[in-house]
């Protein structure tokens, strides 16, 4: 029943003279355009301009396109490190409330009090979950939170008359950690070893010196393990005068259970689109608020929201740029639409729900890990946190089946693939994060499917998926001769 016609490119569907959006005719006195904007500034033609479509063309096109996606709403999506939990529909309705959705960022402060209260309370809740008192909601995503925090660290060191040059991180770190450190102007130092999937304290020791600015660590780490020595690690970094950054990508395992500020973190970011069910928006938007120790608060990017108690005891809210702020990391306040959804989530879960969500995320991951222990054994740790990294090495050695084959074949059964080939320390890695919003029945079905796949014909698996709209795109050709936009005389665009 697929409607291939409607998934032709927009540009193939275009017909001269069609149009969707109609606007009222001008109701102000007519003037020649040239009187307002001289010809020298004006566009002479629209020859290569936009396609021409009707509204129903557009709707049919995009709705049919949407059906070519897997998503949390339609499929189990155990993409490790991404926390693909259910996105509550009430958040969508709340984000569209008049007064929220149409609030201009330059509206007068007295006209923003409801929004500022919400954002202030979000800062407070995140500070409590982090165990770190000062929060800036500004960063647009986790990676920008990292960059902002590293710049905060750098400003803090400068304020103490120090210029420290090095940022250290384990090899299992997300790629954003080194990328953010490089943009912030630091030298990157990668720890190569792991002992039992955890940071090797001895190796860290050899790298720490008076040039160490920040040690970045994801905890729980990307193997789904809690860094049991985190306190010693933090203590060692602090001894050489460095700061500890906690990449909060995996906060879903520990929110309400343990806090970065309590286990030695000086700074951290949250991924609101992950932990607090943003949602993920086909790749974004996210929101990456950061929380820091009080000594670092005055360097935070701003503005932040402050609460002021008036003479009559009533609170009102103001925007304030911290006194020695690194400045803005983006225009306007932040990705407020996502922060608002995160706020709704935290207010719905409440103090008990936050902890329960983490506990059930960990329960689900461990259960799935147990069901797959024979097939995709996780090389490290007895129990995992919210996710685990299984290895398809045995499958590869015994039968020639790769993690890629398994991932692609899963799609045929209606399961999104786990994250594969990351982190690199595990060969044929499959990073599986079921989240707490999945049932035992779904996890059982997923595990049974994986066992079924392991028995299938090798060639058949190499060619999977078989039921997806496309199968095994030619990435090499894409990279060798990049086609990055539609063009009218493109032959390859017609062989559908």
């Amino acid at each position, binding site marked *: 029943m697929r409607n291939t016609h409607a998934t032709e490119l927009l540009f193939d569907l275009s017909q001269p003279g069609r149009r*969707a*959006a109609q*606007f009222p005719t*001008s*109701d102000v*006195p007519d*003037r020649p355009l040239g009187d*307002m*904007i001289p010809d020298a500034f004006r566009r002479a033609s629209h020859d290569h301009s*936009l396609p*021409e*479509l009707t*509204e129903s063309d*557009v709707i049919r096109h995009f709705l049919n396109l*949407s*059906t070519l*996606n897997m998503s949390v709403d339609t499929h189990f999506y155990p*993409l490790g490190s991404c926390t693909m939990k259910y996105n*509550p529909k009430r958040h969508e309705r*709340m984000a569209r409330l008049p*007064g*929220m*959705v149409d*609030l*201009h*960022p330059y509206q*007068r402060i007295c006209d923003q009090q409801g929004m500022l209260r919400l954002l202030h309370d979000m800062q407070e809740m995140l500070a409590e979950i982090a165990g770190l008192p000062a929060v800036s909601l500004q960063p*647009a995503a986790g990676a920008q939170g990292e960059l902002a925090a590293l710049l905060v660290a750098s400003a803090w060191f400068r304020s103490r008359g120090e210029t420290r040059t090095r940022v250290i991180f384990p090899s299992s770190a*997300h790629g*954003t950690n080194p990328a953010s450190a*490089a*943009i912030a102007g630091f030298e990157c130092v990668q720890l190569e070893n792991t002992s039992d999937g955890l940071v090797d304290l001895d190796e860290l020791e050899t790298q720490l010196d008076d040039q160490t600015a920040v040690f970045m660590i994801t905890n729980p780490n990307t193997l789904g393990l809690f860094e*049991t020595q985190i*306190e010693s690690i933090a203590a060692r970094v602090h001894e050489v005068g460095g700061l500890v950054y906690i990449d909060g990508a995996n906060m879903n395992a520990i929110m309400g259970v*343990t806090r970065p500020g309590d286990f030695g973190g000086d700074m951290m970011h949250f*991924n609101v689109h992950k932990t607090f069910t943003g949602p*993920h928006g*086909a*790749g*974004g*938007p*996210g929101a990456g608020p950061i929380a820091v120790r009080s000594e670092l608060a005055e360097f935070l990017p701003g503005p932040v929201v402050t609460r002021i108690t008036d003479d009559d005891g009533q609170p009102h809210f103001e925007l304030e740029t911290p006194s020695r702020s690194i400045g803005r990391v*983006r*225009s*306007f306040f932040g990705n*407020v639409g996502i922060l608002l959804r995160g706020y709704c989530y935290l207010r719905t879960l409440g*103090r008990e729900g936050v902890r329960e*969500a983490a*506990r059930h995320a960990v329960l*689900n991951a461990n*259960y799935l890990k147990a069901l797959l222990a024979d097939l995709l054994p996780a090389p490290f740790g007895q*129990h995992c946190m919210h996710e685990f990294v299984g290895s398809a090495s045995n499958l590869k050695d015994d039968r020639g089946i790769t993690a890629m084959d398994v991932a692609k074949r899963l*799609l045929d059964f209606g399961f999104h693939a786990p994250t594969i080939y990351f982190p690199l320390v595990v060969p044929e890695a499959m990073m599986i994060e079921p989240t707490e919003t999945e049932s035992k029945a779904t996890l059982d079905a997923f595990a049974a499917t994986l066992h079924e796949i392991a028995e299938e014909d090798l060639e058949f698996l190499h060619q999977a*998926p078989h039921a997806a709209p496309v199968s095994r795109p030619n990435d090499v*050709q*894409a*990279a060798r001769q*990049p086609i*990055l936009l539609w063009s009218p005389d493109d032959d390859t*665009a017609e062989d559908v």
Partner: protein
Amino acid sequence: MAYLFNTPDDIRSMLEAIGAESIEELFEQVPDHLQVEGLLDLPVGFSEPELEMHLRKLAAANCGGSSRVCLMGGGVYDHFIPAAVDEVASRGEFYTAYTPYQAEASQGSLQAFFEFQTLVCQLTGMEVSNASLYEGGTAVSEAVFMAMRVTKRYNRVVVLGSLHPEYQEVLETYLGNLSCQLDVIATPDGAADVNIVADTLDEETSCLVIQHPNVFGALEELEPLCQAAHDVGALAIVSFDPLSLGLLKTPAECGADIAVAEGQSLGIPAQYGGPFLGILACRQAHVRQMPGRLIGQTVDRNGQRCFVLNLQAREQHIRREKATSNICTNQGLLAIRATVYLSLLGRQGLVDVAELCCRKSHYAAERLGELPGFELMFSRPFFKEFTLRVQGDATEVINRAAEAGFDLGPALGRFPRLRESLGEAADQTLLVAVTEQRTREEIDRLVESLAATSEDSATPQTLTKPA
């Protein structure tokens, strides 16, 4: 408990399969003394009706665009959003998916982003567009970093003072820890003087950043400015307003090497400043220095056309510290909104919106400029937004307008970075933006109410009390 599945029976049998006694046991890796005792100091959870009541109360304490007539600008505009945009963006298949790492499971998003890239190129005349950045401010910063890599000049960046002050701030933050000099050229006439700019640029300069229309609403002499950059081997970075391209020459025609924009005008609501959409397009020659995701067309094993994440060797998950940017999560859903919006507009719709914005803003400027105590700050041509100079404090005028049911602004005095360009008039200036949504009746009513209140405020403050 909200959103959880496991019943007590499930929990028992799951723990049995795991071989654990309790959920607590699963947290054995977390040292006991690091575990939170009891519960965090968070509020008690809300049911859905309670949550909705609470949010409605908060929303009612705001005053959004639906309660007053919006003529605010400064980078966020009240353009009409067709219902079809919301309809598509509300599809769970789009908004609850993530980055399309598995191409076979993500052809919907991938094709939409490929179409987005194409539409941005059609709009700007540029040769290649990425699949989105965070917003307009970081798009400028990313473009500057890209220009430094392309020119291999890491020591100097030149920016016009008419670039949005918050974009300037972002750039200053991004360059904060690097040894790169950032020079800002003041624009006291509302736009840059090409000769001064040409004299300021040198062989060390990696790029010249120009906003057009600029933060004052005015048009810059874009072609000679781009030429001046090229004359010293620097790149011209142009921050444009997407909808202005229904009327104005494209960045490519004017010589831009990198065109960036805030895409909020393209079907994205104001939502207090975000999430918005960063646009970045450039020349084909520089594609491998681009930041962010790129979608490419290829064929699958059956020879069928399909779309994939392409040229990923630029990105952080492959190149780590050598990546062209640290961006990972981008603004996918907003790119989809913009794609739907531009598809609905089409060739003629884009022209219509641009012309309506232009005509109505000029009508408003003319009427407001005639009011006693009001004048246009600059005589430069503008597109949909202009700088008004008033007698006294601009925030007072904004307050008076608000009382009459209109939102104006921002007052430019709030931006310290604009003071050099505005001089002593800084606190007397404000922006007024007029989109296609405004009617003559609204504009007339605004003018009348400002005229009336300015007469009131001209009367003596101390009124004689009746005896």
